[in-house]
């Protein structure tokens, strides 16, 4: 049977660019890096660049104006401001680096261990982190100054300890997230030791966010370092940005301009660091963005243009039948400002009381069609052409106020994932009664009664209890019933059901399908039923539309499509179904092949 196994073509290799490459291609990234590099160079080359020794004072130069000899002027002791600024950078950057390193030396290992092993170490270290973050850092530094004296270096080490919780929390959160990934389980099964798992798998993931964090922390440290010197830590004679600001403050009446240079230096350095961190964050997010998991909004890769015109003119592109409840003509949906088209001219009709199945694999565009009807395409998606009408009334291009009278009132929507579609902060009943009150203008009490009836109708055993419950207090099957109740709460004419049973167990699915069928018949609903499961289609649908890569390839009554599929793709899909095939033992017996 190896002939079935075709070698899948790999998509053309996308331009692979590392995170560094991405930062270098981001204008803000490159600008910030250049600025940081210049600052670093000026700092290192201070002895070469400075016009004179930063400590040399001359009575002639007290508050000297800007001149060739003193490009930034002189200070109250007649020292050259530019020289002090350049040398001061050394103190500032070194102090900040000491604090940053201290925080990393403590935070990184502690975070890795807490995130990977959890348990006691995690609780204890998290408690300690809370403790360290409870007090304003400056107060702690002031208090400890009486113990350790006014040394700026000691203070920066202590400040590093105070900052360690930040690094710790970041690393811990990332590491414990990674800990639950299946690839760590796979590494455990392969017998990798803990140290190797941490070094190989966790450090790789932690690295990027930590560098970003470090850039931000470095900026904070530079400012705090200057602040401490401003408060009188350290040696006031040593040139540093903080002591220069203090000088400026003491002479604020005579020479306020002395405040600008060190302040600007601080601002420029911090801003460059923050911009670099931002650019790095964007690059990291672009790199790890996971492709949409399961049939969500996944746009097919660009360039999957239809290789053949749609065979067999399904649901004629012509006039819609006059009695159609929902009528879609030539619908096109595109993302990225129209550059990536994911639905290429789909036309379909749903009559009153008819259940139409829209079937396809992930990326076929079936969900896009359903969301277009509701006018709720995800950000970046838009209908580029076509028409959608509900009972003859056009829906596209109508104002939001009109759509609000349609959504929920005339079109009900049942989503795929039951748990994520209920607002976790509101009681189940309130979420439903809010809708009823808005659309039907019922009083609070009347709305409550209606919702209780609805909950009973969708088979919830104790409606009053479920009404009061929060979403996390009910099971997935119950949550899906609640969502169905929400969809039919205002007696709509049309239901849009987007994979309503995909997330459920088979036995629960069968119950939910029974419920949907009963409700549909009872209320004479038209239903657009989006699914990838042909069994579900066979269970509930009157008519079936098969979608592939944004086009409908076949549109026929349900029984016909299963009996005599016409399009190759439909045949391929039905042929992939395992249900009808003989069991493995039976196949083995037929070929005379025993157990291996």
């Amino acid at each position, binding site marked *: 049977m190896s002939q079935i196994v075709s070698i899948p073509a*790999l998509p053309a290799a996308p331009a692979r660019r590392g995170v560094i490459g991405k930062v270098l291609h981001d204008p803000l990234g490159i600008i910030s890096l250049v600025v940081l590099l210049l600052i670093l160079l000026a700092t290192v080359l201070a002895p070469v660049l400075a016009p004179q020794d930063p400590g040399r004072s001359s009575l002639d130069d007290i508050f000297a104006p800007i001149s060739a000899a003193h490009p930034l002027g002189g200070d109250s002791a007649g020292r050259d401001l530019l020289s002090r600024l350049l040398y001061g950078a050394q103190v500032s950057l070194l102090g900040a680096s000491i604090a940053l390193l201290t925080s990393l030396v403590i935070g990184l290992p502690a975070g890795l261990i807490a995130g990977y092993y959890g348990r006691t170490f995690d609780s204890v270290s998290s408690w300690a982190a809370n403790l360290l973050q409870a007090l304003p850092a400056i107060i702690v530094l002031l208090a400890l100054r009486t113990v350790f004296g006014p040394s700026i270096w000691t203070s920066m080490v202590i400040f590093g300890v105070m900052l360690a919780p930040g690094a710790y929390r970041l690393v811990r959160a990332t590491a414990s997230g990674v800990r639950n990934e299946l690839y760590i389980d796979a590494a455990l099964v392969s017998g990798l030791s803990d140290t190797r798992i941490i070094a190989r798998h966790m450090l790789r993931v932690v690295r990027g966010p930590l560098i970003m964090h470090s850039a931000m922390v470095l900026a904070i440290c530079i400012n705090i370092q200057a602040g401490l010197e401003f408060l009188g830590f350290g040696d006031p004679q040593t040139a540093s940005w903080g002591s220069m600001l203090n000088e400026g403050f003491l002479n604020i009446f005579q020479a306020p301009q002395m405040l600008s240079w060190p302040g600007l230096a601080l601002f420029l350095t911090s801003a460059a660091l923050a911009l670099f961190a931002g650019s790095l964050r964007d690059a990291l997010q672009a790199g790890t963005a996971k492709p949409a998991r399961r049939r969500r909004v996944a746009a097919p890769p660009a360039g999957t243009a239809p290789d053949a015109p749609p065979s067999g003119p399904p649901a004629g592109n012509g006039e819609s039948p006059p009695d159609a409840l929902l009528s879609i003509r030539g619908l096109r949906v595109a993302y990225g400002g129209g550059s990536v088209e994911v639905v290429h001219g789909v036309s379909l009709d749903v009559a009153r009381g008819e259940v139409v199945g829209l079937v396809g694999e992930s990326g076929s565009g079936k969900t896009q069609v359903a969301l277009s009807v509701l006018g709720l395409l995800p950000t970046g998606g838009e209908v580029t052409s076509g028409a959608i009408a509900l009972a003859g009334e056009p829906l596209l291009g109508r104002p939001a106020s009109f759509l609000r009278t349609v959504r929920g009132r005339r079109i009900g929507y049942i989503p795929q994932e039951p748990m994520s579609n209920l607002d976790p902060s509101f009681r189940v009943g309130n979420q439903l009664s809010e809708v009823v009150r808005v659309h039907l203008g019922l009083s609070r009490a009347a709305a409550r009664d209606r919702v209780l009836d609805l909950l009973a109708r969708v088979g919830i055993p104790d409606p009053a209890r479920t009404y009061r419950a929060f979403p996390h207090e009910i099971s997935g099957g119950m949550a899906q019933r609640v969502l169905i109740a929400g969809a039919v709460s205002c007696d709509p004419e049309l239901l849009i059901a987007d994979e309503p049973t995909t997330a459920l167990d088979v036995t629960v699915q069968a119950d939910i399908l029974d419920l949907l069928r009963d409700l549909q018949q009872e209320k004479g609903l038209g239903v657009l039923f989006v699914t990838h499961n042909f069994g579900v289609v*066979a269970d509930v649908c009157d008519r079936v539309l098969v979608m592939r890569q944004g086009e409908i390839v076949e549109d026929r009554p349900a*029984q016909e499509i299963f009996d005599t599929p016409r399009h190759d793709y439909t045949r391929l899909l039905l042929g992939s179904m395992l249900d009808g095939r003989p069991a493995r033992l039976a196949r083995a017996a037929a070929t005379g092949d025993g157990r291996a």
Partner: protein
Amino acid sequence: MPESLLEVRDLVVEYPSKGLRSKPFRALHGVSIDVRPGETVGLVGESGSGKTTLGRAILGLAPVTEGSIRFEDREIGHASRRDRRGLARDLQVIFQDPYTSLNPSMTVGDILTEPLWVTGVRRQAAQTQVRELLDKVRLPKDAVDRYAREFSGGQRQRVAIARALALRPKLVVCDEPVSALDLSTQATVLDLLIELQESLGVAYLFVSHDLGVVRYISHRVAVMYQGRLVEEGDGDVVTSSPEHPYTRRLLLAAPVPDPSRQAANRADRHRLLAQQAEL
């Protein structure tokens, strides 16, 4: 009948609960199952049935509270990490979600070499083996230098299969390996698994919620419900004429892709539910 490769007896798995006084959560209540060399045993059940826990306990990823797990007559229920390293040659895993079972920041080459160098294969030899592996699962050779995230779901699952088979194991625990895949991809991945089994003689413990999938790949099928094994037997028998009431409910709940047959199926299901409700 060949001797058992894997022998699980009265396995109990309990997870400590969060509260101090509340009782631990018992995921498995004494499960016994055998897997023989080269065969596929399908393990079916719904969420919460304990099927995944059983697979994870065998792999050492879930705590064994009571009972025994024997692999080739060695007790592995409480194997240490060092023992596991030795076991890794013989016992491997393929997970459900191909998006989180491969480290997104590693190349396919790195991923496939990892199990090899744990067992001390040299770099040169490992590279040759990786190329052979890719060939076996029908991925192009240039896949070595590419990141897992560049591949589709089906292709990622092929990488996961290659990783599992790198050390020529005797048993692979497959935890819902095709559940996250599209219909047409599902069948090809299953066929690849069957083909590899026939050429390598590896045994599978195949965990799935989908009776159709299990029926297609399994020689024998075991059905789990609420932490217990309720039925076990030949694959085609269990998946077509089961005895246990739960298995019958499960079988009838799965919709069949044909409207008229499904209508009959549905009627049967309602009749069965009414019957079971009377009892």
